[in-house]
């Protein structure tokens, strides 16, 4: 089955070559970071986590969102998702790997990463996060692989896989919860120290993940013979809609609590994000863009007429995804550090080098996802013939179903 990933037409190999080129370019930037240290990033003693950790946080959400197809299918027997579960699981796999890589590239001493296992520290949420992420990776690899290979063999998946699938559902919730605990347990950072952080993370994940999945389905429909079916897409859209509602709701809760109570330590962070603080407006336009997109997305999604039009749904999904990416992937982490414990506002924006390293990690994720999806579609006989073959009047192979 794995060999499906290394057979393909020119279009496929062209894409893989492109992704490898991205990775290679990013790797050069990473080597530079290894050599010179994290000074090549925009990070500072005040804003000590930035783009890398923000990407990590965002991607944990993408990974966790697989549960939004797994749960309806396996617990509620929602048949329309039968073809989607593996897509979800094989989206979770590269996402978790990217999460781990973003942590590694953020480390000052990446070659000591194994110390987390060698000296397990039960009091550190980071230890638990690593445990839950690797567990989730393991679960998704095993489940996705076993289900797909059984599908290929034309037999029912082995019985022992069922408990794994059931466990994977709460496990998905756990990865994003523990990730929220990384932040929300810090007394030093009032912005994060809120009980709704984990629910907010989950709500945003369950909006962004299904939105991404819908976009992937649209893309795959263009590139392959795969079709998830209208029902599945609409159900995903509904999931994204309500998750987005809850997400926006929770953000508004935060805003109320912060500003009505009027505690300056809490307010400053929101001020920094939405109006700027001490003359620093770096994130202000972004955050308003995010809010605007959220509003647009909600209007489009909540109106059934729009939601059911696939073109509009596509736009809405892009709006959801980008809105949440800005919120989590840009704002969430930096705002926690701004203002600093000393009340200072230190400007942070990722450097080119930092951005390139992120490209490397995204590239590795894309590569893994491409390989895995290639395997899925080849096994299911859903690949489209190469362009050359299309020009040819007679196709060499005829699909077996």
């Amino acid at each position, binding site marked *: *089955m*794995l*060999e499906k990933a290394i057979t393909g037409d020119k279009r496929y190999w062209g894409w893989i070559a492109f992704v490898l080129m991205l990775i290679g370019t990013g790797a050069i930037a990473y080597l530079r970071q290894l050599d010179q240290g994290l000074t090549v990033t925009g990070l500072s003693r005040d804003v000590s986590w930035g783009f890398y950790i923000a990407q990590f946080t965002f991607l944990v959400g993408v990974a966790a969102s697989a549960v939004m197809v797994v749960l309806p299918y396996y617990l509620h027997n929602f048949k329309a998702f039968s073809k989607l579960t593996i897509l979800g699981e094989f989206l979770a796999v590269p996402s978790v790997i990217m999460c781990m890589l973003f942590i590694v590239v953020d480390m000052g*001493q990446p*070659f*000591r*990463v*194994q110390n987390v296992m*060698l000296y397990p520290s039960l009091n550190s949420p980071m230890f638990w996060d690593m445990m839950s992420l690797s567990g989730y990776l393991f679960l998704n690899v095993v489940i996705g692989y076993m289900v797909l*290979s059984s599908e290929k*063999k*034309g*037999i029912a998946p082995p019985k022992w896989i069922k408990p794994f699938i059931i466990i994977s559902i709460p496990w998905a919730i756990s990865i994003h919860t523990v990730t929220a605990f990384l932040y929300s347990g810090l007394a030093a950072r009032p912005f994060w120290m809120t009980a709704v952080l984990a629910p907010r993370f989950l709500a945003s994940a369950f909006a962004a993940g299904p939105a991404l999945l819908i976009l992937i389905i649209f893309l795959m429909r263009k590139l392959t013979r795969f079709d998830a079916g209208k029902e599945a897409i609409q159900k995903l859209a509904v999931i994204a809609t309500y998750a987005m509602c809850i997400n926006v709701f929770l953000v508004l809760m935060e805003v109320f609590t912060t500003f009505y109570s009027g505690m300056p330590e809490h307010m400053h962070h929101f001020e920094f994000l939405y109006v700027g603080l001490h003359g620093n407006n770096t994130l202000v336009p972004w955050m308003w863009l995010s809010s605007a997109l959220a509003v647009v997305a909600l209007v489009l999604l909540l109106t059934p007429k729009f939601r059911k039009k696939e073109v509009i749904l596509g736009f809405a999904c892009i709006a959801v995804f980008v809105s949440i990416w800005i919120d989590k992937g840009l704002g969430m982490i930096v705002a926690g550090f701004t203002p600093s414990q000393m009340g200072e506002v230190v400007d942070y924006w990722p450097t080119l080098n930092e951005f390139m390293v992120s490209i490397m990690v995204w590239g590795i994720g894309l590569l893994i996802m491409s390989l895995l999806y290639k395997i899925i579609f080849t096994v299911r006989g859903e690949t489209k013939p190469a362009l050359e073959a299309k020009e*040819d009047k007679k196709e060499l192979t005829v699909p077996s179903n």
Partner: protein
Amino acid sequence: MKALYSFFAVIILIALAYLGITADMTTFFGLVLPYIAAAAFIFGVAYRILIWAKSPVPFKITTTCGQQKSLPWIKNSNLESPHTTLGVIGRMALEVLFFRSLFRNTKMSLKDGPKIVYGENKWLWLAGLVFHWSFLIVIIRHLRFFFEPVPEFILLIQSLDGLLEIYVPVLYMTGVALLMSVTYLYLRRALIPQINYISLISDYFPLFLIMAIAITGALMRYTPLRVDIIKVKELAMGLGSFNPVVPEGIGAIFFIHLFLISVLLIYFPMSKLMHMAGIFMSPTRNMKNDNRMKRHINPWNYPVDTHSYEDWEDEFRDVMKEAGLPLEKE
């Protein structure tokens, strides 16, 4: 049973070396035997290759694992069914470096139905690949004992191998990988009924031998059984440059390690381990599938007795005539 034989054979070898060292036979174990072993290995392997080379390859019997080169608009698979030299080199490179054929491995199982299903089975490929690559890197790392000054590429490989900062002295990943993979290779022989059935003593022996070599090596690096490696290098340099010396006071564990390596080297040319050289000479893999394009010469192609047309026509002339078939001679 067969595994036990091999296991005890290796234990006995270890005991032999130990007794020999306590009996102060360091010159034998440190100099004489290594030279014998190196000679046996080098000349043995070369000899075996020459013996193979003595036999011709009378026919071009490529196993074609992909589409042949035929019509211009049918895509030829030049790596699986190569028709050019470059294709053959590519195919061989994939075989030698990445075990291409083993990567294809499947596992058949018979389900009710009856239905035969073919599952993926990449563990042997993975373990084999890990085993051979880590063994190679371990050997390259050991060249630091034989080369002075130590060349850059060895330093580079060493530092990459010890990239993860675990333990002092730093834990080499290939060492762990080697031991894990060789253990897997043993376990599959022990536990999978069919593999167990086909395994011979000579399949277990090298596994245990390599395992013992790796373990003694690890003991010397990571435990208080450590030896003075300056002296070891002195000995190794002496061996390599033919100015042999056996420095005093290297621990017995080193001589056991060296003795087991010597045994492996001597054993190598007379065993299945020759697959190292054989893979390059396997006619089903290293030949082009250009049979109909280019004539292959069989050096012993002797004439044989065929039924010639003339004889044949003589035999059937009457019936042919009757049937109105054209004839050479009326």
